[in-house]
């Protein structure tokens, strides 16, 4: 499923000059056919050849049988955002083959199962029919395995046709099947068979090629969810409670794997972490809050529907001031929505979640580095500010493979916030759980089980005074929620600050999270193709610091780019700084697909034309 487009990366005719290390490969298969390993093998081999690469898995909410597409983009300039156009299409799914072929731009290469008989569909693309089904019968005597092994045949054919080094395919496969030597041999043989067939039977070669370069040295390939799990591990998480939900499950599942290796106490043999699969999201967040109240570094990972269920507890966390880290790997809503597609659709929902006046710190990771580092920021902030902190990832970041620098070992100690132990409680003068002693709105808490007879207090979601006593006094209520408001706004100075690139231009772009990848490429397109220079501010956290105001005020026109229908971040900037609202224009993308650069640059050009 590529999106029909009139703007291919290069509009050269068939058989024109070779295009090296600038291509998108799309594999169209059937869900549950085991093609993921084959596709990751192609991706990893290109990565090992030193070429910047990304993979986007477009899969259905289904176990087996529905169409799925995997797109690999290799780009020498390091552009790894999704590209709408497909250069090399591998058609393995009869259900979608005709439409897949119709959608590729002129000049594309189509490798397909011979039996699909696609070659007559168009005369402006290169067809490479391959007898995959026939070949697999020769390679794989076990009938039941053929469905899986056929994928490795296309790996071999594609490797030969576009120049992926066979040694790197072997390396990638060896990694994938490190614990299954039998399967490895079978898959290696299948790749060889595909490769040899292509060598012997195909004379011409597509103009799209890959060649070894050195732009991935030292880098890793990892999904954002795994990066977040690693971040949580190093952030000292001690309790994770969760309920399975796409696309967040692999956060906790990765944490379970990591904990089994790195959290078993060498002295006692005990688990230095509790991971509980709860009966639903209500229970998951309840456990997180109960554990955090008793002093654990607690988290859950979920997606939009889970946040909807957690909302009552999130209000309790805010008002009773109990820390919680919620990783929200966003998917396309509302309701069940498109469970396997991406969106920044919970931006507004999380920032002001739950009934009554609330405001929650949110972190917006844009890449693997931040998926990892912001997990640590989230735990520190949750305990420092004694409140729920959202780590706002999305399906694109969480479930796709991204190229990244290795994780940096954390430099900072854990921030456990203002906790009074027995000595601290003994020294405190007239301690009250909700008293603002330091003028920053952050009170001191104590943990259950602290001896000395001075720390006990009653946590409640009902009205309470500075000493945690029940009250329905309007003045006490107002003073309390004003203090909480000051406390939360204070987090703006501590949370990751916006990153600004460029200054002095009339046009400013604001974006956040996974839009970043496409924005960088779009700005280059605007500069090179349209002569439009832009400055760019990337929001990394809510509540907003003043630098966002400064950026908006310094630009004549500001476009807020986001992946939702309503321009939720634009609304939030407008709500928090109402005087700036008229200056903001939305550029929105909400097809459930990751944002691509062309969508942004075309929108800017069009809006600029309208404006001038």
């Amino acid at each position: 499923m590529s999106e029909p487009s009139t703007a291919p990366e290069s509009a050269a005719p068939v058989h024109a000059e070779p295009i090296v290390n600038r291509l998108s490969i799309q594999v169209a298969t059937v869900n549950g056919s085991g093609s993921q390993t084959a596709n990751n093998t192609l991706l990893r081999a290109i990565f090992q050849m030193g070429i910047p690469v990304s993979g986007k898995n477009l899969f259905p909410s289904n176990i087996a049988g529905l169409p799925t597409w995997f797109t690999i983009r290799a780009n020498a300039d390091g552009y790894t955002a999704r590209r709408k156009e497909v250069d090399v299409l591998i058609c393995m799914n009869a259900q979608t083959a005709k439409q897949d072929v119709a959608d590729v731009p002129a000049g594309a290469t189509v490798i397909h199962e011979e039996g699909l008989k696609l070659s007559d569909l168009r005369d402006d693309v290169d067809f490479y029919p391959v007898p995959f089904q026939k070949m697999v019968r020769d390679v794989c005597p076990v009938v039941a395995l053929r469905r899986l092994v056929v994928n490795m045949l296309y790996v071999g054919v594609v490797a030969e046709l576009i120049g992926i080094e066979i040694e790197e395919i072997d390396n990638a496969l060896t990694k994938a099947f490190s614990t299954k030597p039998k399967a490895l041999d079978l898959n290696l043989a299948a790749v060889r068979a595909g490769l040899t067939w292509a060598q012997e039977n195909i004379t011409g070669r597509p103009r799209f090629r890959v060649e070894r370069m050195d732009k991935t040295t030292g880098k890793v390939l990892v999904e954002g969810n795994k990066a977040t799990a690693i971040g949580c591990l190093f952030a000292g998480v001690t309790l994770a409670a969760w309920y399975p939900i796409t696309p967040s499950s692999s956060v906790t599942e990765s944490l379970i794997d990591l904990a089994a290796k790195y959290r078993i106490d060498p002295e006692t043999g005990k688990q230095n972490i509790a991971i509980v699969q709860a009966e639903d999201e209500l229970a998951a967040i309840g456990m997180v809050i109960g554990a955090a109240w008793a002093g654990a570094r607690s988290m859950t990972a979920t997606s939009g529907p889970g946040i909807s269920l957690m909302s009552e507890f999130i209000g309790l966390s805010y008002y009773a001031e109990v820390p919680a880290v919620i990783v929200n790997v966003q998917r396309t809503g509302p309701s069940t929505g498109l469970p396997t597609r991406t969106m920044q659709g919970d931006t507004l929902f999380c920032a002001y979640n739950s009934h009554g006046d609330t405001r929650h710190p949110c972190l917006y990771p844009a890449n693997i580095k931040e998926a990892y580092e912001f997990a640590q920021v989230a735990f520190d902030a949750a305990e420092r500010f004694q409140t729920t902190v959202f780590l706002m990832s999305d399906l694109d970041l969480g479930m796709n493979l991204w190229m990244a620098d290795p994780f940096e070992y954390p430099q900072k100690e854990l921030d456990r916030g203002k906790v009074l132990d027995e000595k601290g409680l003994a020294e405190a003068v007239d301690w009250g759980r909700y008293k603002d002693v330091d003028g920053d709105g952050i009170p001191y808490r104590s943990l259950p089980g602290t001896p000395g007879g001075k720390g006990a207090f009653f946590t409640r979601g009902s009205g309470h005074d500075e000493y945690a006593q029940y009250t329905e006094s309007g003045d006490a209520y107002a003073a309390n929620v004003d203090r909480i408001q000051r406390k939360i706004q204070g987090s703006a100075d501590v949370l990751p600050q916006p990153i600004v690139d460029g200054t002095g231009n009339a046009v400013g772009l604001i974006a956040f999270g996974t839009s970043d990848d496409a924005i960088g490429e779009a700005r280059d397109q605007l500069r090179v193709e349209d002569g439009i220079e832009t400055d760019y501010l990337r929001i990394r956290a809510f509540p907003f610091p003043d630098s966002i105001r400064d950026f908006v005020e310094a630009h004549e026109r500001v476009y807020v780019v986001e992946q939702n229908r309503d321009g939720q971040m634009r609304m939030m900037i407008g709500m928090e700084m109402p005087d700036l609202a008229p200056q903001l224009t939305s550029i929105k993308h909400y097809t459930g697909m990751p944002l691509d650069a062309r969508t942004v640059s075309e929108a800017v050009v069009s809006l600029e034309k309208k404006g001038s």
Partner: protein
Amino acid sequence: MGAAPKTNHIGLSVQEYKGGVSTLCKGCGHDVITNTIISAFYEMGVEPHMVAKLSGIGCSSKTPAYFLNQAWGFNSVHGRMPAVATGAALANRKLVNIGISGDGDTASIGMGQFVHLMRRNVPLIYIVENNGVYGLTKGQFSATADEGAKLKNGTVNDLPAIDLCTMAIELGCGFVARSFSADRKQLLQILKAAIAFGGTCMLDVMSPCVTFNNHEGSTKSYDWGRDHEGPIHEVGFVPGWDTPNVDFNDDRVAVPMPGGGSVWVKPLENTNHDPRDKAAALKLLASDHQNDDEFFTGLMYVNPERESLQDDMDMPADPLWNLPIDKLRPSRDKMDEIVESLR
């Protein structure tokens, strides 16, 4: 000089176990339970600061404010106390957890969490202060109201009651009892045994609502309760520090508790029930309310063999907040190992 105040075996007076003044209606059954809790924790010599008092929402859920002022309390979300208690118990397994719920909080909005709490065997004394009505919202039926029971305004309950004891036993709970707030003597013994049990204890305590469900036609009123209570045995508890090895030379059945001491039951004139017999417990509960509307009280089922959730999860003895950073954050070498696996 007056006499020194009476103290328990850790040297604390009963005063140290008291809480704030109750704001419930005068005569509320819940206040009797509150006072019995105070007595039980005092007599058992539990350190108050090691107690976590948890609750959901409702009249019953307010009561943790009325006992053990030196313990940490958490009045959480309607029907969700089990999850909060589970989290707290995992975070610090040294805490003695007591959760107070009501029939609405447990049998309606909280049924899902109740079920899973019973499955997990979280160390928690879970008390349902069961009066068959929603008090704070002025007297609607709850899901434990008996079929045919009448509200003050004449409305008759047409739905069968949920039997929480039967559910708890079937779901794997290892300590299941039913009592009546007017039978303070029995409740106190059951509570003391529960403190020594160490897993989930489900105590369904009929606790009349004097304002909305204490009238003629109610099956949760004081009068109805007094007229119909049928104790299935006499229950007692012998603390560990008193008699480490219990050897009764009579017809009592004693079951040692993991936390020390033994709970015992003794046949009554016309009835007997061995709480170790799960099938007998379920059979007994199935016949509850059948003969002359008698409702059974006593220790329905006890099985101290089951592992607690924390043991099952291999949790450390120390609270999780106390783990030093080097036990939480893997070394640089381990980070290199993780990074290498991603290349």
